[in-house]
């Protein structure tokens, strides 16, 4: 029932996104922002499979973003291969790399996993800068501007990019939804809660972790291709840099990690908030927007632990409480303080 409702609201939200270029996002600039927001949401959805459902905070997903970006770009620049195919190639390579990195990190717990993924992406930054013959080093790679062509992933204006991103997001959300309902999803959550017990209950924990990691990596990799072809340029820090990894994790956490809609909302919200802060405040002093953005993160951490998606639940709880207070008036027990587990960690 509640799930049905969330699906309806979600579908309505996608319809809203689909029509918004018609009335809300009318300029190329706004559609470009829309592209950014939606791609971040898509990455957050992908990240959430590992970081939210699996409870393994990857801080190195930029690695796969970068692989997708570089693979498709190298193929189009050097061989004129369509970025669509390049994107698939990038996904394959990402899968292989994720399989490798995933298998050597399955036994790592908590922070250790986070830090290895983090360092892995930094390692790729280093390597991409160093092996200039392949990657162009810090100069980066430019994709030549061509006539609009679906095959070559080049379009006039931002609208087509926007819709491609949106379709990607819809597909990703559907994948996440399927994952959450499947036995794979339950296994993933059990691994998050208690690996040892999950294992003792027959969950092949390494396999589950690995699959989640690979799936998520492959998804992020495709977004890497989208972004590189949209920007027509890629360089090592833009591709593999920490900010990218952090951003997708933030999107998911901000919206509500481990939920279906949290990463979607969170990914979009992160871009909307940071861009509007930027718009409103940049002229105060350079970086004022960053401060507001930082304050936002802190505020969510302090007062909105479940992320943005927990707001409806909180409102509902508050309303119910209010209602109950009304009914309770016959037996006036002053609920002075609720028994709370004081200071238990």
């Amino acid at each position, binding site marked *: 029932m509640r799930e049905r409702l969330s699906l309806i609201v979600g579908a309505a939200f996608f319809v809203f996104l689909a029509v918004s270029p018609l009335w809300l996002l009318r300029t190329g600039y706004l559609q470009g922002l829309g592209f950014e927001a939606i791609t971040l949401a898509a990455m957050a959805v992908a990240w959430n499979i590992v970081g939210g459902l699996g409870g393994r905070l990857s801080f190195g997903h930029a690695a796969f973003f970068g692989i997708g970006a570089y693979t498709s770009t190298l193929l189009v620049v050097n061989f004129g291969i369509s970025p669509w195919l390049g994107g698939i190639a990038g996904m394959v390579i990402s899968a292989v790399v994720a399989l490798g990195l995933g298998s050597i990190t399955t036994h790592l717990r908590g922070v250790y996993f986070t830090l290895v993924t983090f360092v892995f992406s930094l390692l790729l930054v280093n390597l991409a800068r160093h092996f200039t013959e392949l990657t162009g080093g810090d100069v980066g790679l430019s994709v030549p501007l061509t006539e609009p062509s679906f095959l070559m992933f080049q379009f006039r204006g931002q609208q087509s990019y926007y819709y491609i991103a949106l379709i990607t997001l819809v597909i990703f959300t559907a994948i996440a939804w399927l994952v959450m*309902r*499947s*036995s794979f999803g*339950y*296994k993933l*959550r*059990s691994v*998050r*809660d*208690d690996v*040892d*017990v*999950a*294992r*003792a*209950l*027959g*969950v*092949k*924990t390494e396999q589950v972790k690995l699959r989640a990691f690979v799936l998520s990596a492959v998804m992020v990799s495709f977004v890497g291709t989208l972004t590189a072809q949209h920007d027509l340029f890629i360089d090592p820090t833009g591709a593999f840099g920490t900010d990218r990894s952090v951003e997708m994790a933030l999107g998911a956490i901000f919206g509500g990690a*481990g939920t279906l809609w949290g990463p979607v909302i969170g990914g979009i919200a992160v871009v909307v908030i940071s861009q509007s802060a930027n718009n409103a405040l940049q002229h105060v002093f350079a970086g004022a927007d960053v401060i507001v953005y930082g304050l936002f993160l802190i505020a969510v951490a302090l007062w909105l632990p479940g992320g943005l998606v927990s707001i409806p639940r909180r409102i509902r709880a508050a309303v119910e409480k209010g209602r109950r207070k009304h009914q309770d008036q016959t037996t006036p027990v002053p609920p002075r303080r609720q028994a709370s587990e004081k200071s238990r960690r």
Partner: protein
Amino acid sequence: MSRALIEMDGASKSFGGVKAVNNVTFTIDEGGVIALVGPNGAGKSTTFDLMTGFQKLDSGRRRTMGIDTTRSPSYRFPELGVARTFQKVRLFPSMTVLENALVGGLAKFHSVSAAEGAARRALERLGLDDRADRSPAELTLIDRKRLELARALVPEPTLLLLDEVMTGLTPHEVEDAIMLIRQLVDEGVTVLLVEHLLKVVMRISRRVLVLEHGQLIADGTPDEVQADPQVIEAYIGVPRHEEVDDAGR
């Protein structure tokens, strides 16, 4: 009563300097209730861990349902029909009661809905069905134990290892638990118990294994074991509250 469900051969495990389980050999054959008793720290829970692959054997061998599982990871055991509970209850905190039980079924059922059906039946059996959508944190310790037991029952195991499930129950509740165990046995499940409630153990088990200092010091029928001076010395002690018992009865 002949098929060997688990065969431990020279199983050992130490932690740091402590030999928790020391060269233990026994076979769990099919049917009925078998108890594993012994003083605190004797290595009972560790033995469970070794029987289910939850801890790796330092040395020795293990066969499960006739298959060599010495090196098998713990996730193999539910498939083979072995399920267990933990002395210190370990539930999945972020999942509901139903979901906790459901995960137990995934080893056996391939579809989520089949696992959910089995989970609901198990919850009902343990009287938890009315709390299916609660969080385990809202349950009392005892209900949490029940939930863990339900989770172990979902995959319909042939061998069930219960680590102190009756600890902390009132006499009435203990009776309920015994009924449940008997039912399971009738359904063909072999139950292996770790329990300190000697009276219960002796009443329902057909065979009792006694561990001390990581070693098997006795193995036999309840009567044999209770009469064993070594067991009395190490575990049962000289009953001090006999009179109270009588009064209570």
